[in-house]
């Protein structure tokens, strides 16, 4: 099996006349954590939407886990093993933690079409195991998540990825709306993912966070990948220069 978990070749997305993403060549190795940075509208989210199946690319290839994929929806991407923590958390406020974790892929005691009997006990146990990985305090697992804090909710969203055997985790600005302590909690989870050898794509605007957590930084600008930098070879100023366009992609080669 190849060392590469995800590769895109010439990935392109046009919205009408707008070239939101042009010719993105991107690779991610197993166990590697990569940050995607760039200004608003640089193409980061567009890129993620293509590889998570939320949108279908205009052109280009996505090779995931050695197989060329054309996801026609986010569920297909999830089934293939790509777990995404979206910016707007995909959680149902009126459900408790286990129900949210297993939303759309419940465990059953007895299969009977839509009226399959839920295996609540197994889901509760799996939830405890998943949340133990994240080291987060939750008031009660059987309460609805409506009155949980932003950090707790974010952790529930992230624990969803831990509850299933994902091959790749993508987080779209996971700490954008969080306080200091909560941000620390989420960053801790990301470190445990690293220790577990799970590959991660992290979209973030936070320079400190990126340098703290990842191995490699990919910079998007105007729909193109303009830099692909190993953390050791670069610094904040350098990255900002690429983001703003003060420095252009002369040093860039497809990794």
């Amino acid at each position, binding site marked *: 099996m190849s060392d590469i978990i995800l590769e895109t070749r010439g990935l392109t997305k046009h919205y009408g006349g707008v070239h939101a993403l042009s010719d993105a060549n991107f690779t991610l190795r197993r166990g590697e954590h990569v940050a995607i940075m760039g200004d608003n509208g640089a193409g980061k989210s567009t890129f993620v939407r293509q590889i998570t199946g939320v949108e279908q690319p205009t052109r280009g290839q996505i090779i995931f886990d050695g197989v060329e994929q054309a996801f026609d929806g986010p569920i297909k991407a999830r089934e293939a093993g790509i777990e995404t923590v979206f910016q*707007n958390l*995909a959680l149902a*406020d009126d459900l408790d933690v286990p129900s949210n974790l297993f939303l759309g892929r419940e465990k059953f005691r007895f299969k009977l079409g839509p009226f399959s009997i839920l295996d609540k006990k197994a889901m509760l146990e799996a939830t405890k195991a998943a949340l133990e990985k994240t080291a987060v305090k939750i008031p009660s*697992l059987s309460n609805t998540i409506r009155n949980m804090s932003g950090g707790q909710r974010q952790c529930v969203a992230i624990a969803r990825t831990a509850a299933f055997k994902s091959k790749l985790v993508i987080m779209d600005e996971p700490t954008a709306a969080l306080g200091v302590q909560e941000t620390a909690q989420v960053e801790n989870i990301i470190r445990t993912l690293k220790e577990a050898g799970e590959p991660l794509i992290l979209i973030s605007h936070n320079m400190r966070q990126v340098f703290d957590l990842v191995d490699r930084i990919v910079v998007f600008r105007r729909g193109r990948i303009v830099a692909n930098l190993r953390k050791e070879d670069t610094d904040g100023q350098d990255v900002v220069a690429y983001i703003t366009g003060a420095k252009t992609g002369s040093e860039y080669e497809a990794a």
Partner: protein
Amino acid sequence: MSKASHGIGGLTYDPAKKAKPPELNVFLALVLITAAFELIGRLFMGDSFLFNTRENVDAIFNWPRLNIIILQVSIVGIIALGVTQVIISGGIDLSSGSIVGATAMITMSFAQTALVNGNPNPKAIFGEWAMDLPVLVPVVVGMCCGLLAGLVNGALIAYTRIPPFIATLGMMVFARGASRWWSNGNPVSFPTESYASIGKGMMPVVIFVSLAILFHLILSQTKYGKHCYAIGSNEQASRMSGIKVNNHKVLVYTIAGILAALAAIVLSSKNLTAQAGMGMMYELDAIAMAVIGGVSLQGGRGSILGTVLGALIFGVIISGFTFLKLDAYYQEMVKGAIIVGAVVLDQWRQQGRAKG
């Protein structure tokens, strides 16, 4: 907020923080309203609302009254079970009362008996062939009517993206028209004995309670139930999580339609006749029962237990007003006030939660 804990095994949760079941409040309201009638009765009428005061009867409670309390809400209660799952999944169903009317007319036409006191049935809709059919025929025909109406509701809402309010409003008007058209406004009467036995005596209560238990289990223990809450809570998230939201909605409205049809069967059997105006306003009573029982009109919250308690509150109020010999006008006015009050309480509860 708790301090951030690091490392593996930081999961802690406090069982004391487990939320109270919201049905508790509804139950307390039921007790309170009942107690109020008891008190007013003792003070002003010199009679008890709940307890037996007749010397010649040996019983603690006034059983005839208790039976009537639940009997008079059983049929609308059956509809309310369907409406509950519709509202929980984020929709609304205004068509159930009209479905009752149309289904009752059509069902009764297949349940007629050929001879009434030795004479041919004066209300016969079809010829000889449709007379004295086995009871299963009208029941199946009736349920198919409800299924069809619900299916149309669900398909309109899921695939044309019409708001549920409009789709079911259309069905409400259509089905009422259909029930008038069916026999040119004439009542359909004289069912077979076996059909008449469906809604006899306390049978409506038995049917209502059995269905309530069944739907309680469905909503709390099955995938179907879980997805109702999920879709009502966050439809977008449910879609992204891989729930087939459209299929689910079709199923939800279809089941609501079948339950309305069951109510029609019980009602027409109990009354031994079907009339085009049957079930008028039942949809609103059913919605009111659910709302009083704590089912949130915003979706995602509520339970069958709550709706059953809401139905009982309804029954207690109607019986209480009869007991106090007050006009029916007051009943309507108080019912209206209680519905609004229940929704206001729901809003407050939500705001309280939002503040944390």
